């Protein structure tokens, strides 16, 4: 196999006079100087005129979506790490760098080991010469012939601000292979912006304009900023080979339940931050200690720390299929939010249902039996839901009372809130 980067550097698919040819030739020269084998190079191209270079390359090639080349290259570069001996190079245009600006900033921020080459010809060449965010003031394009813009973005400054270790801007004329080689050799994220004028649209819309003159007038000056590279990769995560399934999850059946019907449903209705979900999980686990099957389904708004927090717990002597709520046999209402949430259930409840409700709350209209208890005051609001479980244990007598104590002692909460807190007063 021929060891050149391009299949034929004299036969490139671009318009006559296009700077893209020059970028390809300078990249080839740089890679040759650095001694890369073509198949140690992964060339990722974007959508746009520069992307048609793909077929002229002897390297591995990846040709994806408009603006997303830096992102797919980021996945490859992260997977390879810094010591792979491979080189990931991204070619994209100023259009792609507009669409995918965030990907460039993120790749720079994460210091993915790759070199991004922005072909900035100051317009979208493939679609008819529309301006990009990198089109400078005073540069006309076919769709913006008398352009007055808010000024252009500076990708070199932006990448540097995001943490890029190596950034430079070069004029895409003459021999800039040394600058390309320096960027490619940099260990970490590097970005080179190559300034060009599109021969098809840029020249026509800006007769007589010269590239160096434009760069001087617009402040797009050649520049280079280099930080000391960080050689090490992020340390690998070592804990991943621990299975999520182990005997630690097993619940031991040491007790016997006293349920006389196949299914009992309990609705816990409280407020976020008052332990409703963990109390419901605790109840399900205790039921399993008593030889039952259990399910626990949470219900809450999108906010994390405010509003209602409800859970439906099903205890069953057989297999539970449907884990959704139907009429609860018990409702444990620990806060005003919980009372509001439970109102439809209270309205539909039959006289066989039992409601444990905090004594501070107004008594709702319901056929169910109401029991008022100091759920919030007895052990603080953060423990209101757990308090309601222990009181439910007393009232229902369906599960062994010792099983609640034993299971509680096994949990993390026991160290902070002693189990005696929940004993009946």
């Amino acid at each position: 196999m021929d060891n050149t980067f391009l299949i034929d550097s004299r036969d490139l698919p671009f318009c006559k006079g296009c700077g893209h040819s020059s970028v390809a030739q300078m990249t080839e020269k740089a890679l040759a100087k650095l001694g890369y084998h073509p198949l140690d190079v992964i060339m990722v191209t974007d959508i746009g005129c520069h992307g048609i270079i793909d077929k002229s390359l002897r390297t591995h090639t990846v040709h994806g979506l408009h603006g997303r080349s830096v992102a797919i290259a980021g996945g490859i570069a992260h997977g390879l790490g810094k010591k792979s001996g491979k080189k990931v190079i991204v070619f994209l245009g100023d259009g792609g760098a507009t669409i995918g600006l965030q990907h460039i900033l993120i790749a720079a921020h994460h210091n993915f080991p790759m070199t991004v080459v922005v072909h900035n010809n100051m317009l979208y060449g493939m679609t008819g010469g529309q301006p990009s965010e990198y089109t400078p003031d005073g540069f006309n394009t076919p769709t913006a012939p008398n352009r007055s813009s808010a000024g252009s973005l500076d990708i070199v400054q932006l990448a540097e601000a995001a943490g890029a270790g190596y950034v430079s801007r070069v004029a895409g004329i003459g021999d800039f292979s040394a600058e390309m080689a320096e960027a490619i050799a940099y260990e970490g994220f590097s970005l080179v912006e190559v300034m060009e004028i599109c021969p098809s649209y840029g020249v026509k819309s800006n007769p007589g304009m010269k590239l160096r003159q434009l760069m001087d007038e617009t402040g797009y000056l050649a520049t280079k900023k280099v930080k000391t590279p960080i050689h090490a990769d992020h340390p690998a995560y070592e804990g991943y080979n621990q299975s999520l399934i182990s005997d630690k999850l097993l619940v031991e059946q040491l007790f016997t339940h006293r349920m006389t019907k196949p299914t009992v449903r309990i609705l816990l209705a409280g407020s976020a931050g008052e332990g409703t979900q963990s109390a419901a999980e605790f109840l399900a686990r205790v039921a399993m200690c008593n030889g039952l099957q259990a399910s626990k389904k949470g219900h809450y708004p999108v906010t994390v720390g405010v509003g209602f927090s409800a859970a439906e717990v099903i205890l069953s002597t057989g297999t539970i299929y449907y884990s959704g709520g139907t009429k609860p046999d018990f409702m444990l209402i620990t806060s005003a939010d919980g009372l509001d949430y439970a109102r439809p259930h209270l309205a539909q409840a039959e006289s066989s249902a039992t409601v444990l409700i905090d004594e501070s709350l107004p008594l709702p209209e319901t056929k169910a039996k109401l029991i008022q208890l100091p759920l919030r005051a007895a052990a603080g609001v953060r423990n209101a839901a757990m308090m309601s479980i222990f009181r439910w244990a007393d009232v229902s007598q369906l599960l062994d009372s010792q099983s609640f104590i034993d299971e509680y002692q096994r949990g993390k909460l026991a160290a902070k809130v002693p189990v005696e807190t929940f004993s009946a007063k």
Partner: protein
Amino acid sequence: MTETITKPALIDGSRLITEACVQAGASVFVGYPITPANLLYSYANRRYQVMMAAPDEITTLQWMSGYAALGKIPVTATSFPGYALMVESINMAQMMELPMVIILVQRLGPATGTATAGANGDLNVIHGTISGGFQLPTFCISNFDDCWRLSAKAVHTAARLRTPVVLLTSKEMVMTQMSYDLSRLEDIEKVEIKGFEGENYLPYQANGSHVPAFLPVNQKLHQVRLTASTHNKAGILQNTTPEALDNTRRLKTKVDTGTEVVFDYDKQEGADALVIAFDITAQAAREAIVRMREKGTKAALLVLKTLFPIPEKYVQLASGYGKVVVAEENLDGQYRRLLFGPYHDHRIKGVNVMGRMVKPEEIMEAVESNG
């Protein structure tokens, strides 16, 4: 209906899905925060060899594609708002023939909808993900057994067919905790993507199963070309040459012929009614069937697990019944219409609810009512 449980644990489906994906051979998770897929993200943090926290959904799919180009099988978990943003990149991965699993945890839409309410609202979105009518193999989880088996199957299918695979689920399936017998978990085969061996590699030269041999971009034996544009066998962009169009057609053949059809069919002698369900609604259907049979109502149950490409088998099975009840947690029966057409058919009944789970009683009523 009581089964003896030898290894009882109180767990959620997300734990099973994560562990099964990893054991099946997935080693990379790319995630970004979205409700109700958060548990999958949390478990991924502990269990995948590589965990990347992406800044957005487009980056997620692109980073996954980068890893897939290195021969890894990446996984992500999302919900509709994220999936919508991923669509163009999923098309890219499908065209490049990169293996990956996208776990789509459905929630109530449209738009941001209700993040904490479940739904089965994304069937048409998945069906129409790929421009041109191509399908992504899509497996839908109907209980904890499926969290294990279908997750492994999703990873295996992605690797075998070199394609993105959708593992479909919904809020209650991945977040509700249930007692589960860990002794039900079978061993999972770990898949490894085999590289091409031989000379004259063409990245899109397919073998007998319509799947091209893979090589990662970090080897130096053969040139690899990956492209999202219409391309020939060499991976070089073409306009609409016959070779390139044949290659594009192959993407359909590959998935249509290579996706395993998975379903549970619970027949009952003499039953003239068939209940069809999937996802969390399958659990309501299972309970409805048990209760109906207890009281003497005859009914069969078909739980759909392979949703796309739509298996013809489902329509064939349904044709043997005088009444077919399709239960779904969406407005007007998305999958029912995909299966049986959009027009009224007196034989086909929909049970549809929005913003809550379908109840077993609602399925029973549809089976037992006249008309």
